[in-house]
């Protein structure tokens, strides 16, 4: 893979991320479904990790983590590390345990969203007087509503994956 191929490929992936980000932040955030807004950026990391494997997933996770840190509210540097690890974990899981297909993506998406919500629930449980039940209700709704968008996000990145030259696949 030449440097040019590499740049074109990840440039196209970055462009594919834009409609996902736009949909999440400007459309779905304005019209919550029963008060719940879906999270699409982690789904994008999972989809790319399923298609590109651990290294590609970790690299894309790093980029999405930086974007998320800049645009999401109350995300510290931990979000960058978490997204990178989710990309790495998904890549490894689908390469060696599950399959690199939509079903693998769906399972890894559910797992990733679950991990993401655990990292949100734990600090609140430790430092605030919040009820676990109320937080689990929010997390459950968020995971389910986000998973509805998995086919769409996976389809976008699969479309990109099939169009980038095969020699650039990890």
């Amino acid at each position, binding site marked *: 893979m030449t440097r040019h191929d590499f740049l074109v490929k990840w440039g196209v992936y970055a462009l594919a991320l834009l409609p996902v980000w*736009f949909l*999440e*932040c*400007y459309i*779905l*955030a*304005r019209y919550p479904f029963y*008060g*719940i*807004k879906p*999270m699409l950026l982690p789904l994008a990391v999972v989809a790319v990790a399923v298609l590109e*494997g*651990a*290294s*590609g997933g*970790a*690299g894309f*996770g*790093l980029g999405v*983590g*930086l*974007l998320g*840190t*800049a*645009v*999401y*509210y*109350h995300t*510290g*540097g*931990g*979000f*960058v*590390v978490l*997204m*990178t*690890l989710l990309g*790495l974990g998904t*890549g*490894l899981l689908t*390469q060696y345990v599950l399959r690199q297909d939509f079903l693998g993506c769906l399972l890894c998406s559910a797992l990733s969203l679950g991990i993401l919500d655990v990292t*949100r629930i734990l600090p*609140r449980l430790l430092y*605030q007087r*919040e*009820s676990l039940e*109320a*937080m689990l*209700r*929010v997390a459950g*709704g*968020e995971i389910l509503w986000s998973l509805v968008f998995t086919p769409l996000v996976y389809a976008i990145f699969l479309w990109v994956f099939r169009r980038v030259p095969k020699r650039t696949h*990890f």
Partner: protein
Amino acid sequence: MKDFFRNNGGLILIIAVLLGCIIALTSALMGGFAHPLSNLVGIITTPVRNGINAVVEWTEARYEAAFRQSELEADYEQLKKDYAELEKELREAQSDAEENERLRNLLGLKEKRRELQFEAATVTAVVADNWDSALTISKGSDFGLEQGDCVVDEYGNLVGLIDQVGTNWSTVMTIVDSDLEMGGLIARTDTAGILEGSFELMGQGKLRLSYLPENSEFMAGDQVLTSGLSGLYPSDLVVGYIEEVRTDPSGMTRYAVVVPEADLSDLQQVFVITNFDIVE
């Protein structure tokens, strides 16, 4: 795993950890001001957000107009022609009237609360997150906004507090956010308590008034204001009204569920209180 490390995976992980540490450190050092990465993206995306906001509002207005147009066409067969024309004119004037009303209300509020200094701002985005309740507005440190400034609607009802300030944008933590804590007062009895967001109530767009004195009297319908006792926030800003009184899970104390007076789901313009006189 070997493939991963062969493909620079280890390097990616190290970079991610280093960036994470740098961002966390700068966030901690910057206090209420947005960290440089967030601020840079905010500066670049604020005009885009404003544009997107305008497009979405325009689309909504056209959709609503089209929807009402078909309604009017149905009515047209039943009502007189003059009536339909008046309706059309009214619809066209509605947008101007709404803006006029907002400005008149603000003028009235400014007359009533001379000790407050306002800075108008447009709501450009709603935070896409189920764990916080926040809005992004179109003004930042360029206009003298600071962390902790109160944000109100055109009637002077409290919307929230400025939580993060960028150069030309800010994030407002609304009063139902679970991280909010400020002094509140029941207007009828002058009973002071603590207004705090709660996860249980945030989804319903409500908050609670806790730490009320044991023998305090309060009931549904009582108006709740900011107390201003700490000196950090202005006093007598309308927060909302008590909807119901509940007992803590421990059974020891009671708290009031407060419904905000400001319509947090449909805000277009807000006013940031940049300065106020402290009432002793």
